[in-house]
């Protein structure tokens, strides 16, 4: 497995822990939602940055109140066909204003990178090495897109408007 952040393969400084067993004394931990619920105070007492992992069936609504306590949210794709986390990512970024690392975990494959990126993910646990190496290519397959992206890159509709209106974004109503 390779870890890709902001488009580059790098060393993963985070450690996943499960629902059982002792918490390691050191290190940046990513804990499942149930663990967070169970040992919340113990986790908050630690000095290290804290991450949380949500299964695709766990709505981000459930951590909304606590979002400020996490430096990282990992969203799980149990199989690539399960697309719930795309919506969850957009909620976290666009409605809840989460600014930390948003990590795609699980069945993360080459042909999903661009969709994930466009929904606000910025880090990926990539199963196949060859996929990770071609990460940049995945994001460059398209130079144009029909939908507005959360990162603010203009949609085709906005590009078309530029000659009409001397503005980059058309978000606000006239």
């Amino acid at each position: 497995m390779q870890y890709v952040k902001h488009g580059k393969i790098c060393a993963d400084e985070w450690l996943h822990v499960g629902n059982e067993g002792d918490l390691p004394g050191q290190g940046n931990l990513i804990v499942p939602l149930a663990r967070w619920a169970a040992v919340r105070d113990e986790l908050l007492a630690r000095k290290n940055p804290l991450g949380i992992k949500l299964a695709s069936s766990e709505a981000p609504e459930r951590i909304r109140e606590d979002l400020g306590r996490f430096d990282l949210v990992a969203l799980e794709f149990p199989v690539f066909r399960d697309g719930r986390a795309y919506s969850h990512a957009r909620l976290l970024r666009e409605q809840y204003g989460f600014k930390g690392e948003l990590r795609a975990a699980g069945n993360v494959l080459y042909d999903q990178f661009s969709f994930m990126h466009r929904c606000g993910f910025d880090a990926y646990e990539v199963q196949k090495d060859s996929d990770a190496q071609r990460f940049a290519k995945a994001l460059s397959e398209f130079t144009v897109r029909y939908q507005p992206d959360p990162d603010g890159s203009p949609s085709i509709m906005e590009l078309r408007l530029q000659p009409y209106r001397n503005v980059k974004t058309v978000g606000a109503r006239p």
Partner: protein
Amino acid sequence: MYRYDEFDHAFVTERVAQFRDQVARRLNGELTEEEFRPLRLMNGLYLQLHAYMLRVAIPYGVLSSRQLHKLADIATRYDRGYAHFTTRQNLQYNWPRLEDMPDILAEMASVEMHALQTSGNCIRNITADQYAGVAADEVEDPRICGEILRQWSSLHPEFSFLPRKFKIAITGSPRDRAAIKLHDIGIVMVRNEAGGAGCEFWVGGGQGRTPVIAKCINSFVPKRDMLSYAEAILRVYNMHGRRDNIYKARIKILVNEIGIKEFSRQTNEQWAHIRDGALDVPAEEIARITAYFAPPAYEQLQNEPAALLQMRAADPAFAAWLRSNVAAHKIPGYAIVNISLKPIGGIPGDATDAQMHAVADLAERYSFDELRVTHEQNLTFADVRQSDLYDLWRALGKNGLATPNIGLVSDIIACPGLDYCALANARSIPVAQRISERFADLKRQHDIGDLKIKISGCINACGHHHVGHIGILGVDKKGVEFYQITLGGSADENASIGEILGAAFSYDDVVDAVEKVIETYLNIRTRPDENFLAAVRRTGIAPFKEALYAVR
């Protein structure tokens, strides 16, 4: 019609390159079939009983002559010289090779076409009324919103891995020819009190094993808000639609489980966050797209020119075709012509490459270079001068395309069934062919009047049997093909699901059973213009049951 600008061209070209890479990775083994499957499906490529099958998107059913020529060339070069027009206003090739796929897509891209999202769990090709722009009662041309939605739904980053497929249909006129109430989202163009055109949204319709009529979720969404509203619906569905059971994964199940009120509440909650944001459709963009669908340069003409009346009186075959295949146009002196792809005994929806070239030439000559594909597997020329009707009819006849049976008993919808489909229980196409032959006598067909027979080879209902006036469903009884008959279904603005008549019939007996149903109708109708559906609605299925099963 809509023409690509440089952005649309770039997008489709890049999509072809992307798929070329995906195919190469499958062929060199880097991708397993399991991993490749959703990728190929998102490009309309199925693996069928005998071969791959490619579905080409025909957005809201509109084709130019140039595009149809190209589709015919592809049929010649990469298939076996024919193609199949489907109930989704798509076109299917039944025999392409995987290796050829990227080149086929590149050829399609050269005429502004693609196979994007014609299958897979994403937003599918958007369908619309084939009389768009020419129906007298139309509020607004549905292709405008159709095109806006087509662009928005293309490789949507959030909605490419939905619980299940998602189908949107639009009609601009209150008379529904697009079966919008049987789609995941149905849109009717309506006017509000201020006179502005907007979208009435229906949600949660569908066929398959659980047929459901859609419910109205919002009676007026301004056009500028249509994308944010659709996005809100899709987001609720993507998050909450069931993923544990493929048979319960369509939006109709979610809407039924939580109720339309709750579904609507959640939609509005999402909508509130994204309305008035980047998805707002600017007036300039609406105007830009509307301009592509401006009416063609109509001449000032009179209705029913003398030459037409003369030929109609002189030639009964021409008169019969006028009666069934030609519909009223909103502009005087023009007519809508429906071209039947249901010759007696033929395969519903099939066309040869030669026929496709001929139709393309005729569209260029007689209908402003454009034609439409209907969800009933026929073709439509929307803008024919009435004075040209006779010449057009003769030319169509020379190509085997003038069967005067639109809306009649032999104008049958049938899915591919066991002849092609891996999921089928039973054959559909030969049943359609045999019914068509049984009722070959056109006088008899016209006497029977409006009648929609729809056949599916299994409960997935690709042949719309639930909404056939007479529906025929292939079932498997211990390895033997049987056919269940339903009566009283309808896909129009008064949509209804057909009621099961009784025990299924064998392959040999099903045509007799259909004939008996029709004879019963002829006996019970109060007047010749009480059509089949009206009669069934009046009497219920009892008299038909009696006629079919009493003797057994």
